[in-house]
């Protein structure tokens, strides 16, 4: 199985790669359109600011490539948020696969939402409910796309799914055994 991690300078790619190696998968880091298109599974990670991330995706012409992919694609953290229509972070237009607005957490609690929190499943067959490690200041609202929900200041989507696109707000590569199970499930799709 060919697994690629989209390389666009968005941090934490090494952690994702090392975690996949622990579960027996060697994933290539790449920004090459042909290699991404030919992969069986695509992982779209991300840490940082939505606007600068979208700028890099546009420079590399990945902003048109990613929505055209037909194999399973997993967005992680900022990667999930970039799959939505728009982010309040820098009022950034994103990739538009999920018709959702990414919002900043209200100031009534500590932001970022950082640490381990429980995600509850509305589609348990896909991704397991359990404890996951989160670090984020912006969130995707609950909707019909939600497959895992979480609660911090407000209810929000911990995982989303539409067609061949999947997104997780938490970091499965840093979420212990539960995260490894989730990644294994994704790779079996």
């Amino acid at each position, binding site marked *: 199985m060919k697994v690629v991690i989209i390389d666009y300078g968005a941090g934490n790619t*090494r952690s994702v790669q090392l975690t996949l190696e622990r579960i027996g998968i060697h994933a290539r880091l790449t920004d090459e359109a042909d290699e991404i298109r030919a992969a069986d599974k695509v992982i779209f990670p991300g*840490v940082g600011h939505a606007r600068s991330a979208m700028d890099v995706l546009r420079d590399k012409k990945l902003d048109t490539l990613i929505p055209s992919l037909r194999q399973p694609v997993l967005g992680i953290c900022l990667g999930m948020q970039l799959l939505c229509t728009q982010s309040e972070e820098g009022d950034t237009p994103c990739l538009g696969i999920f018709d959702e607005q990414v919002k900043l957490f209200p100031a009534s609690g500590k932001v970022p939402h*950082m*640490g381990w929190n429980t995600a509850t499943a509305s589609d348990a067959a896909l991704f397991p409910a359990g*404890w996951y*490690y989160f670090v984020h200041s912006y969130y995707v609202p609950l909707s019909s796309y939600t497959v895992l929900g979480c609660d911090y200041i407000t209810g929000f989507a911990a995982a989303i799914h539409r067609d061949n696109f999947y997104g997780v707000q938490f*970091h499965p590569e*840093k979420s*212990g055994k539960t995260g490894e199970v989730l990644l294994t499930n994704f790779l079996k799709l």
Partner: protein
Amino acid sequence: MLAKRIIPCLDIRDGRTVKGINFENIRDAGDAVELARIYALQGADELVLLDITATHEKRKTLYELVGRVAAEVNIPFTVGGGISTVEDVGMLLSNGADKISVNSAAVRNKKLIAGIADKYGSQCVVLAIDARQEEGRWIVYLNGGRVHTGIDLYDWAREAEQLGAGEILFTSMDHDGTRDGFALDALRHLSEHVRIPVIASGGAGRMVHFRDVFTHGIADAALAASVFHFGQISIPNLKDYLSSQNISIRPQLK
């Protein structure tokens, strides 16, 4: 519900842990990778690796160690000790660290926190502050407690938050090593003073101290070293106890 975090801290010298370790079934008690792996299995929520040699010549050893920990450990870990440039941070993150912690260098160079946060994001910047109470004020110390600054703990914490720090790791020098409990009042005040998470350090001796630091101290996380390394408190027992005290923790996977 967001869990309170339990964070063992490993002191590292030349790629090896320095404090004595008292665990059964451990293959090499001085091997930081082995110890990190065991703590992760026991249910630690994060790890901190503190490089106490922190000399320039030894950096390569540290980078290699970070790479090996990242390959073995499936929970977040922070690396601190001797970080003074954005380039240092880049090397640690690219070897697999999730966060870095800065201390003295961030006081001496106010551009450091902002430089790291701009390039890598606030989520990876932990500001470590060592402070001691003097005539009713908490005063920041540098260089492992050797250099008095006259700077107020709460002022510096808030300034660092504005510069882009993502978390504050506060060690009370008055409590560190006493095993008499954490600096609860100062922690509570600090936690109310900033809007980023606060990690409590210094004074852990008994399980009740961890309960108190989360209830009275309203800390988001608690860090300790020797009580874990010497086996006085085991993380699974601590988590069972905190659960029984109605504190939100992440249970160990059975």
